[in-house]
């Protein structure tokens, strides 16, 4: 984080920011999911990644199906409104293409854990997991007692990824980045991570008139920026293009079988230069 952000081609940005064995958080809550950057990670054949994401979505289904991940830290692993993530299921149920360790949380805990990471705390505290079986299968869910009230609360470790990858609407000439719409946990993920890679819809001279409370990540919090129009598709970018719900529905059929999945990746990811 010490260096000022630089505009790089996507391939160079991923090469610089993402290494084998890294803990990687690609965030974006339905909106602004960094698909183009995820595809570049697949093209560069990164391996043994620990992937963090509240909602793995299609992008992690693709990374998991291509064998990039050894561990997934998540809270909801479905295709929203459609059904299963078949590649995630195949990895968990059958170990294909390799075993995948799951570290499973609730949304509230993941959101709190990113927030704690950004705040440079070792843990997040929440009133969570009461009566659920999740602490039984995830040993990182613990409890602590409030020193003031005596209430028992849930505690989870802060998320401190090696690299956060997000997509945003705009970067200005100095490399500051503006996010609008459903902003999810991206600001927290970037500030919690050692390195941050941002893809943007466009580079503008200046952001122009805006709310003084706009969500802006200053250039000096970022490692690399790549201009990638439609870089969130089939997710969406508020003010630029809509979510391709038809593709999310179609993904169910594409990803259901290993062959059709691999054929799709060959044609739409591996066969395309960034």
């Amino acid at each position, binding site marked *: 984080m010490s260096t000022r952000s630089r505009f790089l081609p996507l391939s160079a940005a991923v090469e610089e920011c993402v290494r084998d064995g890294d803990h990687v958080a690609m965030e974006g809550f339905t909106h602004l999911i960094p698909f183009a950057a995820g595809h570049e990670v697949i093209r560069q054949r990164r391996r043994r990644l620990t992937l963090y994401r509240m909602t793995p979505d299609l992008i992690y289904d693709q990374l998991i199906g291509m064998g990039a991940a050894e561990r997934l830290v998540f809270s909801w692993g479905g295709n*929203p409104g459609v059904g299963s993530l078949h590649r995630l299921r195949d990895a968990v149920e059958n170990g294909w293409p390799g075993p995948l360790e799951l570290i499973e949380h609730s949304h509230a805990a993941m959101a709190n854990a990113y927030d704690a990471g950004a705040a440079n705390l070792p843990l997040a505290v*929440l009133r969570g997991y*009461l009566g659920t079986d999740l602490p039984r299968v995830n040993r990182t869910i613990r409890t602590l007692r409030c020193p003031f009230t005596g209430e028992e609360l849930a505690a989870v470790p802060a998320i401190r990824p090696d690299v956060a990858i997000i997509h945003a609407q705009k970067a200005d000439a100095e490399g500051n980045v503006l996010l609008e719409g459903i902003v999810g946990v991206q600001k927290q993920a970037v500030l919690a991570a050692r390195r941050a890679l941002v893809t943007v819809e466009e580079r503008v001279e200046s952001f122009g008139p805006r709310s003084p409370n706009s969500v802006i990540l200053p250039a000096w919090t970022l490692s690399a920026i790549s201009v990638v129009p439609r870089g969130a598709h089939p997710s969406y970018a508020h003010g630029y293009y809509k979510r391709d719900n038809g593709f999310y529905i179609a993904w169910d059929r594409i990803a259901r079988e290993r062959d059709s999945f691999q054929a799709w990746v060959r044609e739409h990811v591996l066969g395309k230069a960034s």
Partner: protein
Amino acid sequence: MSDYTGNEIMTVVAARALSNEDVCFVGIGAPSAACNLARLTHAPGITLIYESGTIGTRPDVLPLSIGDGELCDTALTTVSVPEMFRYWLQGGRITVGFLGGAQIDRFANLNTTVVGPYAKPKVRLPGGGGAPEIATQCGQIFITMAQTPRAFVPKLDFITSFGHGEGGDHRRRLGISTRGPTRLITDLAVLEPEPGTQEMVVTSMHPGVTREQLTAATGWALRFAAELRETAPPSREELGVLRELQERTRHAHAGSPGG
């Protein structure tokens, strides 16, 4: 026989349970349809909140995902996801949470995590998402699920979200002060917790449904309240508004599958 489907009466009955004053945490699918049907009929002032951070949203079509642009475009304000879970949900601002699941038991505990053992699941389901905290932090919980013996099971493989636990005062014993599941609305009936035991019992049967049919659709020994009502069928207006909403939604989501 009837001129509506099981899913339609489930959605209509769920909508009727919501009021103008409610602040509602909405899930995708039947809950989203029910909440928006309520907003478009008897509860125009209801506040709908989706976990993506949109507060006071008024979508014209039902979102496919919890974070469709439609929700943000029509919301009063959109907050970050940590703020949503910390200030608004944990902060105790939500009166009603809607949940569903793959499996439910007689005390309305829900499983959306795995079928079979966790380490070697027969079916890996999506997981908890917001549900574990929604279940304990909203004022009360409404559940909508199609009633089948596969879903209504004697014992859950995994408790993702806590309902009434083992019954009785189990919520209180865990320090949970909210009411938990107060209505389980299915395609066949409405179940409510029996005072004292907190076991979900049938309080209202939908028109044309028999006790035998309900018993056969339930994996545990289903019990019926002493005072059993018949659900009022969906009105022409309710069905009309719901079908128009779903027609607009189908039209909006018919995209172009491809790369």
